[in-house]
């Protein structure tokens, strides 16, 4: 039986595809099954009803795409840069496991947890930042090397591979070491192809965009994935890249990513509910009703409880918190119900614009954010809505970037940051030429990405929990009167 057809998966995006025995064993472990209950897009399903696909489905899709990209590399590259079946298996596995450590509700929880526990563990307490849940912060001198105060999802995935017994048994059965596996998806070994799993054009992004477009019912992520996958190759320096025939398709992919952000991730109600959820998690951490410290998570993995650390865990924590809160906690109760019962806060002020990346533009944006933040207490008092029920959100999004955050200007300056090699690269000669080289897409003047790289999306929104629309109009009017900078219109969100 061919190695990658041990079991067949029928998938909404990719149709029917095969997986290996090793992959079948991995997805049967409890920590991987957990991903069935971690939604890829947090609370977005409350706006787009079918956008409730899981990280389980996405991980399988990414594994399939990684395998196809490896096959294309073998077809498109000279003989000396081809990958054997064992190497293909390793990268498929890295793709399969790339989301293993995601928190419930994905990024909303991860960022709050990171901020809270880093403050607790590493900063001296101040009057406004006490260690209020009654727990002693870890004694670093006594305990030596501790887990991080809080895990990022990448670090957590690695820790699960290190500690989970079932994963360990599967790897042992298939004679794969934990270190080799971590090395493949963390790029620990020089010369690895980790950009296949983590870069601007990786199996993760391709599957995500296709799957989100399919489930949201929006066409923006309908990328020409088939063509892009088929044009994948490796240049003589070992960079994963695309033939020049795929330049337009990949330009389109980067624009699709921008529309995915603006139409799905930054949808006004999605953002409103996610802001409330972050706020609720922060407050529950503060009063000790949730514990996601590095030590606690490590304990959960070791004791086999991590498989239940999923979206249901978080919802149960929210539900069980309400009766435990006191009379003075009414605003927190209201916010918890806002998430559980889908009662989003009202949008009372918004500004959205696409402008250059110059310092003046960024300062304008920051000034408006500061003005709003500085006025919230006054507005809360005047309209008698508790200050904790106002949520300010802002974003300054680079429309084209290299890696997750490197400004394109760095590439133009020539002072390359190492991460710039995560950018999409286009071959400058035939892929079968043993000396073939590639350049970053953004360095090509005829690429749309080159032009977009000089622009940012600046957006600010203010939400408040309100019962009726009458108060909302008065608040909107007052905000417009009070702000020195005029608010700019923003387009309506779809649906």
């Amino acid at each position, binding site marked *: 039986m061919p190695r990658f057809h041990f079991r067949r998966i029928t998938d909404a995006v990719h149709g029917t595809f095969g997986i290996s025995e090793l992959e079948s064993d991995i997805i049967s472990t409890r920590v991987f099954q957990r991903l069935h209950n971690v939604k890829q897009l947090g609370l977005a399903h409350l706006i787009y009803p079918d956008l409730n696909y899981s990280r389980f489905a996405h991980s399988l899709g990414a594994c399939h795409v990684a395998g196809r990209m490896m096959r294309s590399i073998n077809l498109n590259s000279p003989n000396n840069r081809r990958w054997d079946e064992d190497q293909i298996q390793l990268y498929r596995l890295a793709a399969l496991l790339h989301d293993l450590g995601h928190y419930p509700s994905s990024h909303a929880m991860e960022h709050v947890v990171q901020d*809270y526990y880093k403050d607790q563990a590493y900063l001296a307490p*101040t009057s406004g930042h006490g260690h209020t849940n009654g727990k002693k912060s870890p004694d*670093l001198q006594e305990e030596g090397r*501790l887990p991080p105060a809080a895990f990022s999802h990448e670090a957590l995935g690695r820790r699960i591979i290190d500690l989970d017994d079932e994963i360990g048994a599967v790897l042992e059965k298939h004679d794969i070491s934990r270190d080799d596996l971590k090395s493949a998806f963390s790029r620990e070994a*020089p010369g690895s192809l980790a950009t296949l799993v983590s870069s601007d054009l990786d199996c993760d992004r391709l599957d995500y965009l296709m799957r989100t477009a399919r489930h949201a019912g929006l066409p923006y992520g309908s990328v020409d994935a088939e063509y892009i996958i088929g044009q994948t190759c490796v240049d003589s320096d070992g960079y994963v890249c695309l033939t020049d025939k795929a330049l337009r398709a990949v330009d389109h992919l980067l624009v699709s990513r921008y529309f995915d952000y603006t139409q799905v991730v930054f949808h006004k109600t999605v953002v409103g509910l996610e802001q409330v959820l972050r706020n609720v998690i922060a407050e529950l951490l503060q009063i000790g009703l949730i514990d996601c410290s590095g030590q606690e998570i490590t304990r959960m993995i070791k004791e086999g409880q991590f498989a239940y650390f999923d979206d249901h865990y978080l919802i149960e924590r929210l539900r069980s918190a309400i009766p435990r809160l006191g009379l003075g906690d009414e605003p927190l109760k209201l916010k918890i119900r806002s998430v559980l019962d889908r009662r989003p806060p009202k949008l009372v002020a918004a500004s959205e614009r696409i402008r250059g990346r110059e310092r003046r533009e960024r300062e304008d944006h920051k000034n408006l954010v500061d003005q709003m933040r500085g006025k919230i207490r006054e507005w809360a008092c005047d309209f008698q809505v508790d200050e904790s029920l106002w949520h300010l959100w802002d974003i300054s999004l680079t429309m084209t970037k290299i890696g997750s955050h490197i400004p394109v200007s760095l590439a133009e300056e020539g002072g390359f940051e*190492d991460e710039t090699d995560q950018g999409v690269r286009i071959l400058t000669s035939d892929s079968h030429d043993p000396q073939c080289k590639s350049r970053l897409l953004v360095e090509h003047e005829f690429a749309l990405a080159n032009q977009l790289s000089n622009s940012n999306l600046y957006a600010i929104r203010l939400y408040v929990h309100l019962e009726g629309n009458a108060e909302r109009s008065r608040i909107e009017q007052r905000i417009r009167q009070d702000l020195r900078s005029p608010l700019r219109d923003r387009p309506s969100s779809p649906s």
Partner: protein
Amino acid sequence: MDSRHIVLKLFVEELGLQGEIDSFQNRKNLQKAVYLGQLSGIDLGYRYSWYLRGPYSTGLARDYYQLAEAIRLGDRGFESRSLNDPVKQKLCFIKKLLTVPRDCFLSTGDWMELLASWHYLRSVSRSDESEARNLMEKQKPTLAPHIPHAQRALLESRLLG
């Protein structure tokens, strides 16, 4: 300013850096200093991969770009905070390691790159000494002759087994 950015700012200052990222050299120094700082046991959660210039963390890069932008636009949220004493004590130990040995003629930035790269190859990539040395000679020919200094410093600090 978010707490993780405040921690990062104070962490690198405690190691003797200003946290500036305006030049490639400064960014590289910051990357290597945080790598070495985390060897103290203060795990900020940044995970490193192997790139051309040695260990590099994309998560750290994301955070220092956000931190630099916040400071550039006037956010001084870090000024009222400080690291707690156990963290400071642990970083004091690493700060000594960052001092270039007298008989090693490298800049502080190159010394940090050498220390971080050698430690990474030996401990994280699990390369044996010969493999690690060959890679260093190929990718970092100006640093490779100073490997014995790095090996000695890391052994004396009990950071290599």
